[in-house]
Structure formats: C-alpha cells, structure tokens
C-alpha cells in the first residue's frame, strides 16, 4: 500500500450516528474511497489522543473521528470532552509542523448514507492534496 496515491485512512466511528451512516452507505451501494478502515466505538469519546498518535506512527495518513452531533451525545456530553482533547492534539501536531488536517473531527454529519460518503470523500481529497504537496 505504501507509496500508492490512495491515502490510508482510519475512521473511529461512534456506533450511534456514524456507525449507522456507514451501514446505510452500504445498503445504498454508495461507492467509497478504497483506503479507509472503520473502527466502531461505543462513543467517540473512547478515542484517546495516543491512539491517533499511534496510528500516525504506524504510517496511517489520516485519522477521522466521527461522533454524534455535539449536543446529542448519549453520554451527557462526553463528545464535548473528546472534541476539546483532540483539538488540543491538533494544536500539538501544528506545533510540530505536522499538518493538523491529518486529524479530522466530524460531529453529527455521518448519520445518513450521503453525508457519510461526503465526509469521507472530503477528508480523503484533503489528504491527497497533502500528499501531492509533499511530492511537490
């Protein structure tokens, strides 16, 4: 896979909204970028910064965290904390001059097939731009 243009994307998805979105995308037979792997979670708040960091160190190009929309978290706002925490990590990446765009937070957009597809495609195209930027 290394060197191929298709970015490697790891998606951490809360099973409530985005998990449903991914299933619906399948049921509608939408075509999605080939390079993504989806990990189902009980809540987006389960994603720890270290996982994201580890993913990067394992050579994954981009990590996407998808959760329910910000005030509809089943766990009384756990995703608020997740949002801040991962935002901090983005600042940290920025500080080390690693593109923070590699970590994408998406709240509440992944519930339906089409928005899910749109989110993933958007992220993948961003990553492609980054790649070409590196090449150039």
């Amino acid at each position: 896979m290394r060197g191929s243009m298709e970015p490697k994307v790891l998606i951490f998805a809360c099973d409530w909204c985005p998990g449903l979105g991914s299933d619906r995308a399948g049921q509608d037979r939408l075509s999605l970028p080939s390079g993504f792997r989806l990990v189902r979670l009980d809540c987006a708040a389960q994603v720890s910064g270290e996982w994201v960091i580890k993913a990067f160190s394992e050579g994954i190009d981009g990590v996407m965290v998808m959760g329910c929309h910000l005030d509809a978290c089943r766990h009384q706002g756990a995703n608020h904390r997740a949002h801040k925490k991962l935002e901090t990590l983005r600042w940290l990446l920025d500080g080390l001059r690693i593109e923070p765009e590699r970590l994408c937070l998406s709240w509440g957009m992944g519930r339906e097939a089409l928005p899910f597809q749109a989110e993933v495609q958007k992220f993948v195209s961003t990553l492609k731009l980054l790649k070409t930027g590196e090449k150039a």
Partner: protein
Amino acid sequence: MTGSALIIGGGVAGIRASLDLAGMGIPVHLMEREPFLGGRLLQLDRLYPTDHCAWCPVWPLLRQVGSHPLITIHSSSEVHSIQEEAGAYQATIVHLPTYIRGERCTGCGECLWACAKKSTVAGREGPLPILRPNSYVIPKVFAINRNLCGECPGCQEECPFGAIDFKMPQETRLLKIGAVILASGFDPGRLEGLEEYSYGAHPDIISAMDFEAWIAESGPNAGQVLRRSDGQKVERLAFVLCAGSRDRRFHEYCSGVCCMYAVKEALWACQRSRDLWATIFFTDLRACGKGFQEYVQLAEETGRIQFIRSRPGRIQPMGENGALRVLYEDTTQRNTREMIVDMVVLAQPIIPAAGSENFASLFGVDRGRERFILLPDDKFLSPATSQSRVLACGCCQGPADAVQSVISASAAALRAAEILAQRRAA
C-alpha cells in the same frame, strides 16, 4: 400461563407499552398494519426539542422488541374479528402476505437492485414495489407491495435464498387476549379541503410531514432545501400553522404538536441552507413543554426565522411553477400584506388513524370529540376506554408528541397488567 395482551399499533407508543408489559412478565402480541415497526416516528428526521435524530432513541427499543422472548410481533397484520367470552377476547388476526419469506430473507438487497434493473412495469415512476427495512427496523426482512408490483420473476431469479414467493398465502391466527391496548396512532389530515391554500395546485405547497422527509439528510436531496417544482434552492420559506385545525370548517381542536415541529423544521432548514429565511404564521405559539420556549428562542436567535401572528387568507401560485404569493393580515400590526415565497409548508392536522374507527367498533369502544378514542375517566385513574379491558394510549386518544405518547403507553401497560392480574386472581 394466564392471559396475554394485544397491542394494536407498532408505533412508539405500542413499542413502549409492549416492552413494559413484557418487562412485567406478560406475554404480548404486538400488531402492526405496516410491514415494519416504528410508525410515524421513523418517518421523522429529527425530534424537538433535543434535536436528536428520530432514529437513535428508537432503535434500542426496536432491538429489544425484536429479541424479547415474551413479545410476538405480527407485522402487516390486521384484526379480522373479535369474540368476547368469559372476560377475555378471542382475536382473529389476519397476517397479510409480504411475498418474502421472513425466515429466509437476510436483507441482502439483491431483489431491490434486480427490481430496479429488470422490473417489467414499463416507465414506472416513484417508489419500487419492494419495501426495504430502513436500516434494521424490526422485522429485518423485506416486503413487496403487491399494488406496485408487476410480478415479473426478476427478483425471484436474483434472490440467493429463494425467499420470494408470490404465492404466499394470507395467514389467520387465533389469539386469546386478556387485555387490549389501542395505540393505532394518527394520520396526517387531508389538506385538499382548504381551497384558499390551493394545496395540490402547486408542487411547492407542501405538507409538513412531506417537507420533513423532503429536506431530511436521508431524503431525496440529502438534506438540501430545494423547491419541488424546479429544484432551485429555497430562499424564502413560509410555514402556515393550524392549516385545517382550530378551524370550525374542518377540525375544531388544536393538533398540539404543529407549533413545535414547524419551529424544528424551520431551524433545520435554516441550518441546512445558509441563505434561507423562514416565516412562521401562527395563531398561538403553543410552546409549553420542557425546553420548548428555549427552542423557540433558539429559532429567534438565528435571526433568520420570523414569527407573524396571522392565519394567511390566501396562497396564490404565481404561474405554473412560479413563486407563491401569501396574502395575510398581520394581526398585531392590523394591516393586510402579501409575501412572496419559494415554498409554503402547511402544518396539517393530526387525525385518528384510519384503522382506529374499525378497532373502536370491533371492541365496542366509544369515541369522543373529533372521533378520538374516548377515555371516560379522563385518564384520571386509568387510561381505560368505555370497555374496561381496552386501554388507549398515544395519538389515538388525542394529539400527543413522542414524550406524551410514551408516558401514556407506560401507564396503559401498567393498567393492562393490573387487569390481567385480576383475571389471574379470579
């Protein structure tokens, strides 16, 4: 085992009631006219005032209903007849064929794609005859709507499991029932009667239920707010409340939930298209539930939703697919005005579901104002109807939102449990 309960209607009220009853250890027969459970709630996109998607709070309930050992689901079924004997009912339930064998279908969707490709019904517009469970509703199997189906062998050939069977007979089941809970829900009332709003004359004059489906993320436009006539972005949107309710010509009562869902739809429309302005024509803005006033405030804070106390006198299409002219009197300014909008949403009344009439007569239950099921005791000590062993909850006994429905459903379930316990004792 003593008597079991029959719950009529697989909407959120029926689901809640059956879960509570089963939880109390009482076998439940849950009967739904449609092939799938979920009722009206699953036709909604979002719920006010928390803006949760309608699906998320429901699917754990559905999953429980689907897997509960004490709950028997009779989908696409109807009550054929009732015999009363010795303090119990003998119900005959007709299970209409879905032409897809539940035990064989895995929901792989092959038939759907086959149908889309091969269907012999030439030039058919609109929906496919094959109904797909909208991601894991219960039961998880597909169904065929015979009225739309041309009975070509297309899907049969494609189905890997031979689940499709056009010869599927209709089954009748005999149930012994100790108590009945009516949860047959509501139907959106017809709007054709209101000439002044020329509903049907113009594609952009649309009912609220349709509008919600139209702008839903899962809807045909993936969440964009477009005109039905020419697919252009909607920039000026008008909601007309009390269209057909609080109106002596049609329904004198207030449909209870329109104010709030209009606000909700306005909010979501505004969120989904950044350059949309909405006007809500109201009579009394009945926002009197937990968090409702704040929800209305939220709408006001957007600055893109204005509230006008008025009931428009006329809605005129300007040309074939042109814009719409709304003539109204602003009752607080006391002057008649007109407003040109791209789309008008009519908040249609909530009326008892078509079936409820039938059920009422079957069980000999009285109906009160406006043909809603009558609760003589006014729910004061129980949600019992004129027949002591028949209870009612949800919208069949008056307009109710999701919260009120589940509350009345649980209360009905409790009462049913008491009735059955008395039978046990007797």
